[in-house]
């Protein structure tokens, strides 16, 4: 046997090497110990102390994360004294959990997520939003097989289908599936997503039941004609191609992706289901908002500027925005796919490209203002499909909206932007938080945020509130 000291020495060296490697790696470039310095906060030009200048914000790979990418790339965050790392998340559940746990400072969220979390549907936690990120931007796509079967039932003009297409054209297809004993499945991105409610609205407007949530059925498929299930947005086309679902409702670029790949046909956009519907919001946990009030205002300012940049001069900057979004670290899809919807057009069937200037609205129509009435619409849909299991009074709806939406933060940010010359007076709405009543829905039913209970009782499909 060799002298044991050699072995000793070798063991020691080996472990030393490993230790050094670990420490060398841990002390890498990206993780220099700056947290102590930033804990004290930095001052902005206006003299406010930014409590947390270094932020990690999450997003899902969709074109409507654009305000975040633009605020970063155009330097709007930096001008507010914010140093932001943007991080793509695997799915909406992971994103929300990480915002709640504090791994993310804030994120691009589905409008329903802060609301759902606050009322305790799914993960229970208080999440708030000072800003709506965009209006519209979703579409419903069906597989080629379904489209071929729907087509004979859609009225045409000059050989092209007349839009908007009602889900009534889907009825015969459902009949066929039923007779063959096959379930008809459609994908949406999250139980409290706009897509879930839009898909349900579209189906129900034609008398098709999308199924109900009950206390024991959290999948929302009780009494369903169409079985809805959750699939993360980027996986939608692949799941459709695999035949697991027959159609889906998702944001861009995943509808246009289906057209490009020739695996499905978009039949309707959400703009045609509800004109200028609120879509994504910027969400942070309430605890975070309470601890970082100045930082939240600074983020809101940067995002308002980014949204304005996206829409200004009749969307002159959209081409540049497409180039930024196409980078692999953001939406990452091919630029031509992103451009299809981001530049004011939408391609339905291959070759049937139509003008849809308001498909992605980031700033016009006061899109960034967090209206209470938008929040209340989501609450009515949660009640309509049973996610909210009991009846509530109008007052409860108002109160919940005031908990989740923070127009006061938005107004503070907007006022400062006005002083700095980045916003004009007309760009700041004078409102009590409620949009005027509107009938801009595919079924023409009038929505007034001041009477959510009355609104619920107007639907023929859906739960009613008996008060």
């Amino acid at each position: 046997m060799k002298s044991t000291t050699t072995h000793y020495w070798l063991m020691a060296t080996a472990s030393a090497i490993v230790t050094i490697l670990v420490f060398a790696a841990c002390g890498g470039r990206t993780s220099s110990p700056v947290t102590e310095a930033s804990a004290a906060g930095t001052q902005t030009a206006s003299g406010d102390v930014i409590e947390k200048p270094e932020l990690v914000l999450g997003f899902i790979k969709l074109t409507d994360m654009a305000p975040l990418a633009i605020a970063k790339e155009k330097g709007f965050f930096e001008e507010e004294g914010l140093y932001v790392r943007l991080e793509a998340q695997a799915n909406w559940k992971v994103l929300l959990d990480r915002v709640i746990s504090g791994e993310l400072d804030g994120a691009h969220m589905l409008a329903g997520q802060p609301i759902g979390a606050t009322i305790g549907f799914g993960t229970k936690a208080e999440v708030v939003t000072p800003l709506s990120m965009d209006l519209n931007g979703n579409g419903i796509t069906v597989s080629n097989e379904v489209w071929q079967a729907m087509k004979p039932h859609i009225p045409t003009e000059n050989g092209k289908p007349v839009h908007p297409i009602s889900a009534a054209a889907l009825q015969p297809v459902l009949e066929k599936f039923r007779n063959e004993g096959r379930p008809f499945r459609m994908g949406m991105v999250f139980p409290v997503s706009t897509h879930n409610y839009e898909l349900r609205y579209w189906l129900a407007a034609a008398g098709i039941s999308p199924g109900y949530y009950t206390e024991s059925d959290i999948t929302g498929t009780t009494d369903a004609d169409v079985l809805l299930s959750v699939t993360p947005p980027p996986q939608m086309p692949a799941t459709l191609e695999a035949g697991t679902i027959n159609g889906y409702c998702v944001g861009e670029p995943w509808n246009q992706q289906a057209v490009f790949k020739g695996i499905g046909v978009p039949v309707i956009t959400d703009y045609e289901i509800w004109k200028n519907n609120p879509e994504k919001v910027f969400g942070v946990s309430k605890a975070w908002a309470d601890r970082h009030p100045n930082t939240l205002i600074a983020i809101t300012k940067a995002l308002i500027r980014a949204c304005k940049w996206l829409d200004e001069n009749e969307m002159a900057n959209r081409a540049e925005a497409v180039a930024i979004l196409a980078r692999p670290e953001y939406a990452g899809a091919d630029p031509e796919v992103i451009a299809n919807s981001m530049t004011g057009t939408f391609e339905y069937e291959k070759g049937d490209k139509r003008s849809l200037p308001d498909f992605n609205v980031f700033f016009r129509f006061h899109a960034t203002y967090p209206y209470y009435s938008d929040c209340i619409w989501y609450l009515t849909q949660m009640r309509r499909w049973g996610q909210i299991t009991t009846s509530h009074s109008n007052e409860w709806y108002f109160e919940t909206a005031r908990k989740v939406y923070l127009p006061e933060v938005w107004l503070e940010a907007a006022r400062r932007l006005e002083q700095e010359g980045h916003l004009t007076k007309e760009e700041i709405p004078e409102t009590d938080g409620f949009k005027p009543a509107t009938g801009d829905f595919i079924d023409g039913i009038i929505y007034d945020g001041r009477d959510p209970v009355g609104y619920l009782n107007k639907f023929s499909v859906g739960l009613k509130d008996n008060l």
Partner: protein
Amino acid sequence: MKSISPVLKKYTPPALAIALFLMAWSFGAKQIETSLGQVPGPAMVLDQARILWQEHVAERQKAREFYERQKDRRAAMLEVNPSATVAAVSYTGKPTYVDQILTSLKTVFMGFVIASLVALPIGIICGLSKTVMRALNPLIQVFKPVSPLAWLPIVTMVVSAVYVTNSAWLPKSFLISAITVSLCSLWATLINTAMGVASVNPDYINVARVLQLSPLKKTFKVLLPATLPLIFTGLRISLGVGWMVLIASEMLAQNPGLGKFIWDEFQNGSSQSLAKIMVAVFTIGLIGFVLDRIMVELQKRVSFERVHA
């Protein structure tokens, strides 16, 4: 001629095999049309590797510019108000491909170190005492075959609950991946150490007894040196397993690294995504190979017999 033939003999077969593989790949790739376009051939993959490197260089340039701007800003602020507190801020750009590789290496080493620290003492105890071995054996046999994907949700929830302070140099996601890696990779080291210690030549133990060595001294002077070759075989297997597990756990834990790179590219679904994923596949393979060689070299140093690589 005679002097060349051994060299030829050594290098011709692998060169031929690689050439054949490349030919089969580029031919096969042309036949398959996915919804993301054609399966990329060798040329496209090489091209993407070049692009990823260029992106890395460009990002470093941007970082330098950022620090320049920060320096100017700080100077300007101090000029206005000499007592202003100006914090240093690190660059917050996107992690490049090289950053992702470094993060992955960092994570696997962390996991490997945790696994070794747990497995070696337990292994030695198991080897010394038949009773302990019998006691732990069922647990070891049950946990050994568990996939990282099964551990991950549990580790995620436990770490989130226990590790509350989210410091910048030890992020939660990093810890989650590292612990998952160690949970899956510690078994090989543990079993090999136990086996090694149990099969130490009884003469050595007797000598230790005669010399009246303390248990600690016995372990370090007799048992460990005698079992080092087997321990290193275990460590080598552990590191290999850890590296494989890491990619899977990074995909799901949102820990930056090669796994997340692959997942993000899959989600991008652009026409270059498949080629970029292929670059990652080769990177993972090459790094795994290098890690294994390092362990073999270490093993050779401590072993009396020839090690079969």
